[in-house]
């Protein structure tokens, strides 16, 4: 399949070089709040990917008939409608995860990634590019969430996706040497972890740039 350079860039850029969280610093609120466990983080990542991709497509389809003055409200309504659909679907099929995500599911509406991509990309590009840009940004967002949640759940609770990973016999309570790091479950550690990921990301990318 022959894709133009720009099309490829729209999808691959956000995964690393132009990552929405690490480089553009968008969509931080939800990224930090849902990463105590891996499962809600995965669901959140998938939900955001679907919503960014679909809202990019919708706005790109109607971009020529949106009056410039009220474009923000139109974009918000498109996003709010999609978020409502996703949240109703989650409540129907994955009720416990929807409850864990609580207000952060509704807050996808005000996730800056969405408004940022709609304003910066979908308003001025065709449908296929917008779809790829949406998917790229969604995945770029999701992988950070998964990395942070992986570290926090593994070290904070000794589990992954709810399954015990650290053997029970290692724990001090059972005569072992290991204890969970309760710090990891606190909100503050999410910030510090993302800070460290940004550090590593910049260090590696700067080296490549040289």
């Amino acid at each position, binding site marked *: 399949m022959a894709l133009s350079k720009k099309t490829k860039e729209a999808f691959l850029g956000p995964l690393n070089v132009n990552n929405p969280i690490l480089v553009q610093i968008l969509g931080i609120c939800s990224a*930090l709040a849902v990463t105590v466990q891996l499962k809600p983080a995965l669901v959140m990542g998938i939900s955001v990917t679907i919503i960014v991709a679909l809202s990019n497509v919708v706005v790109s389809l109607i971009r020529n008939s949106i009056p410039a003055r009220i474009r923000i409200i139109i974009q918000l309504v498109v996003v709010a409608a999609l978020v409502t659909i996703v949240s109703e679907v989650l409540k129907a099929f994955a009720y416990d995860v929807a409850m864990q995500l609580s*207000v952060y599911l509704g807050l996808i509406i005000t996730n800056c990634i969405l408004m940022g991509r709609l304003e910066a990309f979908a308003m001025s590009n065709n449908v296929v590019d917008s779809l790829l840009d949406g998917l790229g940004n969604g995945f770029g967002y999701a992988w950070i969430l998964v990395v942070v949640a992986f570290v926090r759940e593994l070290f904070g609770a000794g589990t992954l996706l709810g399954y015990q990973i650290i053997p029970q016999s290692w724990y001090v309570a059972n005569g072992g040497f290991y204890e969970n790091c309760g710090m990891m479950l606190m909100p503050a550690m*999410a910030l510090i972890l993302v800070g460290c990921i940004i550090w590593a990301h910049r260090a590696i990318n700067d080296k490549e740039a040289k």
Partner: protein
Amino acid sequence: MEHALSLFVRSIFADNMIFAFFLGMCSYLAVSKDVKTAAGLGVAVVFVQTITLPVNYLLQVYVLDPLNLGYLSFILFIAVIAAIVQLVEMVVEKFSPSLYNALGIFLPLIAVNCAIMGGSLFMQQRVLLDPENVKAIANIGDAFAFAIGSGLGWMLAIVALAGIREKMEYNDVPKPLQGIGITFITVGLMALAFMCFSGLNI
């Protein structure tokens, strides 16, 4: 009255929008480079929060709940916020040009600030709580107390971070960590400090 007061204090410290819930992070990190601008945005957030949250409270209690339209709340809340921000912008521009000059550039930003939308969504959850619960919002007075408290908490956080970042200009930070990286870690440490408030039962 006592309940509203404790709700007010809790929402500034223990349930701080930034340090406990990470709401409004994007503008928090982007606009905290100097104290003056940070304070401007903080005032704008308090202002808009104090107007939108009670309005959304009335809508939730008198329109959405009786008609069983809960699933429309996202669209309704964001429409109310966007409309009120637009309205506030026009009113302020007309009646107080000096305030408009101070707040003007921030107002459009606030329509998509998660702290505002998040405040309304928390309100929606807390309306359902048992009135004895310290977090419950049982009447319009509580809604005001929560709105002003959470707005002030956000403002406190952004002004504090801006002060720290101004001092940090002179520090020798490793190059890849400079700018946004060290800011994240600073906010993390501030969040740790703020956590001692949640140990207090007010």
